């Protein structure tokens, strides 16, 4: 059932190579034959970085790096390129340096700037050795001749030169450096979260230009009709109730005693974190548990607030079938609403979306069940959706402002558009 043995060995190789001053990086992908270890390390790093999330060809099931997927950004669609070693349409003619420049500096081969849909501001934290390993691995995948259509950004974002300004604002060069006073696990977690794992790409609030608000690192952000929750140890909105094992287990299997991953996080689990080593998962969890944050707490709404009364009736009459009357759910199957990060979030986007449109949680090897939440869009109107969301967000230790009818209406419209 479990792959502990293999993962453990792989992890030991990784830890050894990452922390040692690695000299394996080669100057060119084809110049010399990279070692098996290097390729395997590259393969693992590609998983850590979840490259296929964007670079897979959406029309071909056998082409995880063929490119062509349009990636939604606040500015328009950006199409991910082909990163197979095809000489004409992929990276077959690239040098390791050119590849490194793209991954860590956001520069194309012609020197022009990449849009930050490519999370190079995160990848910049990776070591040269790791990027070299990725390059070595990508050069071993099946080349695919697949010319990818250009970006379709509206003016002025269509002008790549604008990215000079963006880079100046948000891009910081420089590899990640360990913090001496911290444990090896914390440091490894930091490297993964800030680097290849690029967790902040979804979970850190963005400025109006799409750059990270570093003063609120990992404190949650709404995108693509979902809200990526606060990953800090914040008691009101973050993961304070989750132990290190809860976080690591969630990343590995998509499920823990509180939560089930759906939407974009389900994809992340499926393609990336479910294949990470246990050490790396624990490292990420250790790092996240160390992210202290204390946000202002709301006072829970009074139980006799009309929205609470109506929401409580709806909850009791329908939601309790699965989540139980006390919100505790069923561990690893039905989310425990008391400990759910989606409920605790400052922003109810995810919750409204899931109530209205339903959700399928991820199925993984260790947690294959993949339970699903039914859609309530047909059953509850906007004020009822708002009422039940308000009730849940003010029960079992949660406290939040009432969800408005208009927010529910917006979620009904917005997420049904995004879902199509």
């Amino acid at each position, binding site marked *: *059932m479990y792959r502990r043995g293999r993962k453990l060995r792989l992890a030991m190789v990784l830890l050894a190579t990452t922390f040692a001053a690695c000299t394996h990086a080669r100057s060119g992908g084809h110049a010399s034959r990279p070692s098996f270890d290097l390729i395997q390390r590259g393969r693992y790093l590609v998983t850590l970085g979840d490259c296929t999330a964007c670079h897979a060809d959406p029309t071909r099931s056998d082409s995880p790096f063929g490119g062509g997927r349009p990636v939604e950004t606040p500015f328009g669609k950006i199409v991910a390129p082909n990163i197979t070693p095809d000489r004409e349409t992929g990276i077959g003619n690239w040098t390791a340096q050119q590849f490194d420049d793209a991954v860590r500096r956001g520069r194309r081969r012609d020197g022009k700037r990449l849009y930050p849909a490519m999370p190079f501001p995160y990848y910049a934290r990776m070591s040269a050795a790791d990027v070299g390993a990725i390059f070595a691995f990508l050069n071993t995948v099946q080349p695919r001749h697949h010319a990818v259509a250009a970006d379709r950004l509206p003016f002025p974002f269509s002008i790549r030169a604008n990215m000079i300004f963006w880079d100046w604002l948000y891009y910081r060069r420089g590899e990640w450096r360990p913090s001496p006073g911290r444990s090896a696990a914390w440091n490894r977690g930091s490297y993964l979260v800030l680097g290849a794992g690029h967790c902040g790409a979804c979970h850190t609030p963005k400025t109006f230009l799409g750059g990270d608000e570093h003063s609120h690192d990992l404190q949650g952000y709404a995108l693509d009709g979902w809200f990526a929750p606060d990953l800090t140890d914040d008691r009101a909105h973050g993961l304070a109730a989750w132990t290190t094992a809860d976080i690591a287990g969630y990343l590995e299997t998509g499920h823990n005693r509180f939560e089930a991953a759906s939407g974009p996080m389900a994809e992340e689990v499926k393609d990336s974190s479910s294949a990470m080593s246990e050490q790396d998962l624990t490292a990420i969890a250790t790092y996240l548990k160390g992210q202290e944050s204390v946000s202002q707490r709301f006072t829970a709404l009074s139980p006799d607030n009309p929205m609470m009364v109506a929401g409580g009736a709806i909850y009791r009459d*329908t939601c*309790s*079938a*699965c989540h139980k009357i006390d919100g505790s759910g*069923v*561990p*690893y*199957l*039905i989310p425990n609403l008391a400990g759910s990060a989606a409920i605790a979030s400052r922003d109810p986007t995810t919750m409204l979306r899931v109530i209205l449109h*339903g959700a*399928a949680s991820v*199925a993984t*090897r*260790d*947690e*294959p*069940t*993949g*339970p*699903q*939440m*039914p*859609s*309530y869009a*047909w*059953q509850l109107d906007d004020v009822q959706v708002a009422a039940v969301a308000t009730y849940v967000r003010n029960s079992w230790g949660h406290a939040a402002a009432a969800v408005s009818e208009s927010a529910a209406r917006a979620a009904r419209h917005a997420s049904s558009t995004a879902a199509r």
Partner: protein
Amino acid sequence: MTRRLPHKDVVIVGLGWTGSILANELTDAGLDVIAIERGPWRNTATDYPPTYAQDELRYRIRHELFLQPAQTTFTFRNKMSETALPIRNWGAFMPPNGVGGGGVHWNAETWRFLPTDFELRTHLTKRYGAHFLPADMTIQDWGVTYAELEPHYDRFEYLCGTSGQAGNLQGKILTGGNPFEGPRSRPYPNPPQAQPFSHTLFGQAARQLGYKPFPQPSGNLSQAYRNPLGVRQGPCSYCGFCEWFGCGNYSKASPQTTILPVLVRKSNFTARDQCEVTRINLDPSGRRATGVTFVDTAGQEWEQTADLVLLCAYTIFNVQLLMLSKIGQPYDPVANRGVIGRNFTHQTISDVVSFFDPKKFIFNPFIASGAIGMCIDEFNGDNFDHGPHGFVGGGYMGQVQTNGRPIETTPVPPGTPKWGAKWKQAVKENYLSATKPGTGVHGSMYSYRDVYLDLDSTYKDRLGRPLLRITMDFHDNELKQNRFLTDRFAEIFQAMGAQQMDKQYRRAPYDITDYQTTHLCGGAIMGNDPKTSALNRYLQSWDVPNLFVIGASAFPQNAGYNPTGTVAALAYWSAEAIRTHYLKNPGQLVHA
């Protein structure tokens, strides 16, 4: 024009319990498996979510989850001398449809048959003498023993998370369980469900009368459970919308909640829904199946070739496909020859509806699950001496009431008009304080020479194929059995304090409009002799060795229990034979 699909190792006809079990076992063995299902894919959250699963009119009255007679049906008559007429709307039984099959809308009553049930003719003859059995009774031994099936019962119970109390653990009789059950190697994986008020009272009354009541083994889970495949289920919420309905909160064992999540992830498994297999194809020798032909919803015909064909449809559809594919010799009741269609059986069901003092009893009948209840097994199988009674067979009985759904379960005392002010008043007064177990007496039905299946010469299905013809009536043995059991059952309700009782004995003639159970059995039975059985002890066709026919169609006669536990145990038993014997040396596993 028929289009051909790429060859597979195994093609499975029907993706219900048996199809899912076989597919999982054989994909584990590395085989490339395709399952072809007539009905649609079904999913908890999108097909029967707890937002609208509890719709009595839609699911119970209008039969939404079942096959529609317009797709195909059967013809029926009581006697060979009569003209069979088509079943235009379902009644006596409900053929399932769709992925998960009957596992979607069953009660989840998860029983084992008694050890003596598998060696029935030998056992009864030995105890009572051959003359004790009616001359036209055609009961047989199964060719497999309880001891051989025990590990497979065990696997199914642990797959489902069956909730119950062991009564015989490795030969040791345990208090609170069924002392008559065969020895089990392990306890049930989960403790019994909580029992509502009337069910609890029934248990107490039965104990006072000297019986040994026990909770019905239930696939509605008493607590959260993770099965050996890693699939999780939640605890049953006693919603009272179980059988006839899909379960909205992952708490009833079904292929969906136990196997399919793992099965669909396998790269060597494919399922096709909305495709109806029309025949099994044979090579020119007639001794080897080459695959199946099916039609999709657009009417396009396809051929799927495979090395191994597994027939896993609902019992009598298995029989029909064998007949339409001309596999095996059709049964001829006059000449008493042939095997396909013989030993067809159903169940002998009756009920006692009881009325209690509304001022003293609030039963809240709507709080229940599909397999809830307290039962006794003193009158099942050969657990009691039949000598003085002049019949064989028996059944369990219990307060197994599954619901208080008001269209179905608003009983009124005998003598109440069926409509009008008195009816309305009686409904109102008795709803909370009446008991209506439903299938309270769950009796066996043994096989007879003149109860059988063949093809109808008049009526056709939508594809122009002849309908299967059912010739079925109750025989005196079953009617005597039912009278005896129903009277014993009523005594327990009397002891509970019932003021009034409606003893609804099972009566002849067999009525196709009156729902009894969906436990049709036989027609392609297993056994040791190819002259009297269609399948060998591994459910392998005697005639076409690369064809296995899995299901209650293999039961030589029906016992006094719900069949699913035994059907699933046979599926695991057959899968093991395929994995450990057949694959190494494909061919006939038993040489008669």
